[in-house]
């Protein structure tokens, strides 16, 4: 039986959003969330803590979300970790592009903090 989602790595460079997503997933969703502010920090955190799922901002300085996803997919140890993008640029073409890169799903900003955990858990539930 598939385990319930418990651990999430959040990667978000915007401090306000990082704080609110972490608090929402932990306090409302009951998840254990480790938060990172950059792609480089995220890659180190994934290697160290192996989260069940990565919630990844798209637009970040230095290494952007697709760059992080590419690095995760290129490493056999992390290739299978599902990645869900969180983006403010949710045009149909952008969503299609992110899915084609291998994203498990794409969630949009702005989001309702009270129901974000439900969306993340719903994505987890659809994964094999």
């Amino acid at each position, binding site marked *: 039986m598939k385990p319930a989602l418990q651990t999430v790595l959040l990667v978000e460079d*915007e401090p306000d959003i990082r704080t609110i997503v972490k*608090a929402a997933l932990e306090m409302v969703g009951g998840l254990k969330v480790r938060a990172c502010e950059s792609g480089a920090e995220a890659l180190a955190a994934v290697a160290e803590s192996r989260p069940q799922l990565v919630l990844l901002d798209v637009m970040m300085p230095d290494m952007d979300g697709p760059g992080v996803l590419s690095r995760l997919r290129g490493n056999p140890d992390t290739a299978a970790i599902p990645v869900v993008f969180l983006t403010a640029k949710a045009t149909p073409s952008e969503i299609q592009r992110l899915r084609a890169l291998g994203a498990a799903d794409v969630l949009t900003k*702005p989001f309702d903090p009270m129901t974000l955990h439900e969306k993340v858990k719903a994505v987890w539930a659809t994964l094999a």
Partner: protein
Amino acid sequence: MSAEAFRRQLEALSAEYRGSLPGKLIEIDSLWRDLAGGMAKPDRMDDLQRELHSIAGSARTFGIAGVSEAAAAAESFLESFSKRHKLPDTAQQARFARLLDDLKRAAR
């Protein structure tokens, strides 16, 4: 930990966010003036677009949808120029300045 505790934290975070907005808008305005006046390199439009993108993605979450929408409109206008690192022409600069004014009004 509970939804009620989170609501209280969300209210506090929203108040903090609203308090930080005027400073963010001053920085955006200052960078735009530097760009339009030739005192900043055109590639700094990336920074300007990123700041607008950030507000567009966060303000509605903190309960100020109008700010989110105004920031998204300004970001969208700037995107094609930012990609080419090419400053808008005079008429387009005036249009962008109006979009920034809309954003400042929405944040009041």
